[in-house]
């Protein structure tokens, strides 16, 4: 379980997250929606320790992410992350991209790591592209490669930071399909997204962020059909 208590995050004088309280249960799919700059992406970075926090706490399976003694590199193996800019490693083939971390972080043998990588690439539909360099892949394929790369570490949670925002419209579908597949397999997911269709159809709960505050959280039917917050209704009216 991921548990966030009274989380505060500042960038200099800018108060980006203003006391977030949130629990994400195993197997749950949570979508986080809201305008740009509302703090949604920063929340993900705070969960896997890529950003420091100024107050409050984030714990993953009882381990405090930001505590001094925490082995953050070990903890991050539980938390796969997929970025808006897919960040494939351009100097490695698809197979090597995925095999790298299992080999050097988990200490798997070369053969074992390649086997895991091939399996995960198959999983996201890139079984034909094992020996291709990222420059020869489309944006959608590179994003699926990034998903496979995160999955190869056998994470228990997946964090998606606007995974489809940088893609050409015709490539969004293939990435969303892959995310749906993971959700169906029971992966615990936190998806920061602007894809309202995905948020409505796939999530168990949807959280709406507004200016660093989690204004509202609930089942998709409630958020999309009967939002309590004025801001939520306004936001949803604008994106539709």
């Amino acid at each position, binding site marked *: 379980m991921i548990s966030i208590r009274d989380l505060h995050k500042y960038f200099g004088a800018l108060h980006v997250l203003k006391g977030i309280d949130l629990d994400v249960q195993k197997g749950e799919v949570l979508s986080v929606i809201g305008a740009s700059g509302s703090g949604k992406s920063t929340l993900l970075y705070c969960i896997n320790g890529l950003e420091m926090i100024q107050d409050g706490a984030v714990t993953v399976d009882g381990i405090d992410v930001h505590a001094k003694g925490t082995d953050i590199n070990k903890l991050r193996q539980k938390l796969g992350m997929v970025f808006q800019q897919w960040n494939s490693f351009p*100097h490695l083939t698809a197979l090597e991209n995925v095999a790298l971390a299992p080999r*050097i972080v*988990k200490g798997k043998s070369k053969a074992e790591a390649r086997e895991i990588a091939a399996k995960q690439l198959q999983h996201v539909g890139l079984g034909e592209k094992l020996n291709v360099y990222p420059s020869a892949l489309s944006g959608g394929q590179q994003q699926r490669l990034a998903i496979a790369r995160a999955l190869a570490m056998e994470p228990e949670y997946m964090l998606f930071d606007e995974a489809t925002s940088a893609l050409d419209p015709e490539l969004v579908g293939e990435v969303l399909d892959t995310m749906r597949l993971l959700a169906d397999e029971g992966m615990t997911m936190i998806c920061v997204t602007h894809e309202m269709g995905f948020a409505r159809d796939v999530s168990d709960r949807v959280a709406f962020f507004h200016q660093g505050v989690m204004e509202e959280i609930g089942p998709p039917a409630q958020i999309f059909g009967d939002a309590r917050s004025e801001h939520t209704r306004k936001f949803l009216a604008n994106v539709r």
Partner: protein
Amino acid sequence: MFDYNFHWRPVMKSLPDLLEAASLTLQVAVLAMVLGIVIGLCLALARLHLRGPVYWFATAWVELARNTPALFQLFFFGFGLGAFGLHLSPYLIVLAGLTFNCAGYLAENFRGGFKAVPETQIRASRSLGMTPWQAYSRVVIPQVFRIVYHPITNQMVWAVLMSSLGMLVGFRELSGETQFFASRTFRIFEYFAVTAVIYYAIVKVILLSSRLMAARLFRY
């Protein structure tokens, strides 16, 4: 009118000596480059990530190496240190001068290379559980290496050609050796013409092997 008679025989006779001197040229240039790459990498990282005295030391090195004549840098390690009673051998003077110069130029190449790799590559690596060192050594540096590969080749060529300044501090590398024979036989044009051909051949071999190596190294 043109009444110069060419005499190539003395040059041909000392060709083995010239070729031996050429190997010395190549040796000192390669050594200066190896040291220059290691030091240049450190200077670049110091300038990117550190503050205070180390930053200023690295910056001063880069500024001096790039903005003063290479010949003066050589003279510093020869006559400059000599004035303080520290007498280096001609070989060491050239090696030190070349290394100082190459490290300065390479540092800036490396700095540009590091800046060209997006910060997000490190974030992605760290998110997979890599340590900062793993992220740097497995993800960032291989990409930097490709970016700086051709500038490094240029610097290698420059190091070979610049080593000819060694003859001004009494180093008998290819140019020093040529000067020595030329002044003994007065066949100045012939000697320097042949030596120019040797330099040309060395540089061509460097460029060609660099290109072949690049084709093997960089498949992306």
